[in-house]
């Protein structure tokens, strides 16, 4: 099972990265403390934007428009309801409808 061994190696490496700063939990030096508050927004922004706007690796009308419509819908619904399930399922419905239009 060479594939399983590779997956075990990836798992070990991933765990090492997850634990590297969490387990020692030393107080962050001042330079680090200035950086850390921006980690959440920056990383999630970098994860979300390509997945929504270029779902198949490139910006295309059929791929991008449903993502834009769904993201705008999610944002509006979240502002009004502050509810993750409501905003998510509203946005997914919008995405399915928009995708159907471009099919």
């Amino acid at each position, binding site marked *: 099972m*060479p*594939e*399983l*061994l*590779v*997956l075990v*190696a*990836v*798992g070990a*490496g*991933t*765990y090492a*990265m*997850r*634990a*590297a*700063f*969490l*387990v*020692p*939990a030393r107080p*962050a030096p001042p330079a680090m403390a*200035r*950086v*850390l*508050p*921006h*980690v*959440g*927004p*920056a*990383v*999630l*922004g*970098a*994860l*979300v*934007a*390509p*997945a*929504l*706007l*270029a*779902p198949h*690796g490139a*910006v295309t009308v059929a791929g991008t428009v449903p*993502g834009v419509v*769904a*993201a705008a819908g*999610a*944002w509006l619904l979240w502002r009004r309801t*502050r509810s*993750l*399930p*409501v905003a*998510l399922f509203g*946005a*997914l419905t919008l*995405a*399915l409808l928009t995708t159907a239009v471009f099919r």
Partner: protein
Amino acid sequence: MSTCGTTPGTPATVTSPHRRAIKDSVAVIVAYLPFGLTLGATLASTRLPGWVAWASSPLLFNGATQLVAVTLLDGGAGAVLVVAAALVVNARMLLYGASLAPYAAEWPRRWRWIGGYLMTDPVYALAVGRFRAPDGGGGARERLVYYLTVGVTLCLAWQVLTGAGVLLAGVLPDWFQVDLAAPLTLLLLLLPMLTGRAAYAAAAAGGAVALTATALPLGLGLVVGAAAGIAAGVAVDAWRRRTPRPEGVPDA
């Protein structure tokens, strides 16, 4: 700042940390249903034995990493390339750990070892959203209970969902493959973090740079985008600290 369907303004003392954690987790699990099942079906469609592909769920506990690792293995990539690509995609876990560390400093060490295993995108986003609330998510103990409950609940759900996806491969209807469900969930976990101009700048710069860098190999676009976003957040913070604000203009 409240996350995930809690009524705004509800005092945190009313809900115990694990009840709140389960409530927040259930919303995320429902949101991850399509992604988990589809990912399981994708894992089963590779030439790897089904159980080996599924073993990536307990070993990696992160959908994006599993997809990268298993599709590269399926394509016959060498072990070194697979490990390198997956670890580049996962470099953000270092930042997640550093960002949670100040809130975890008072947790017993053994729970920090276990907490490391449970740290993945939605767990991090829910926890940091909760810990940055005005009440700080309660004391160290409440924070630990919240984090572990969210982590264990999402981790168990992920094993079941991806396992079900492996078994249901070929039975799932086409329309069920909702590629947008996972990024939309992360978007909805990002929105409560946007509490000021620096946060907006970090998210916008991170998103824009990652989008223009999608062509980079090994998932480096995510790393470059995250670095640009953090730099933008730091820059806006520094600029705002140097520029005195006129009276009566609120922050954000």
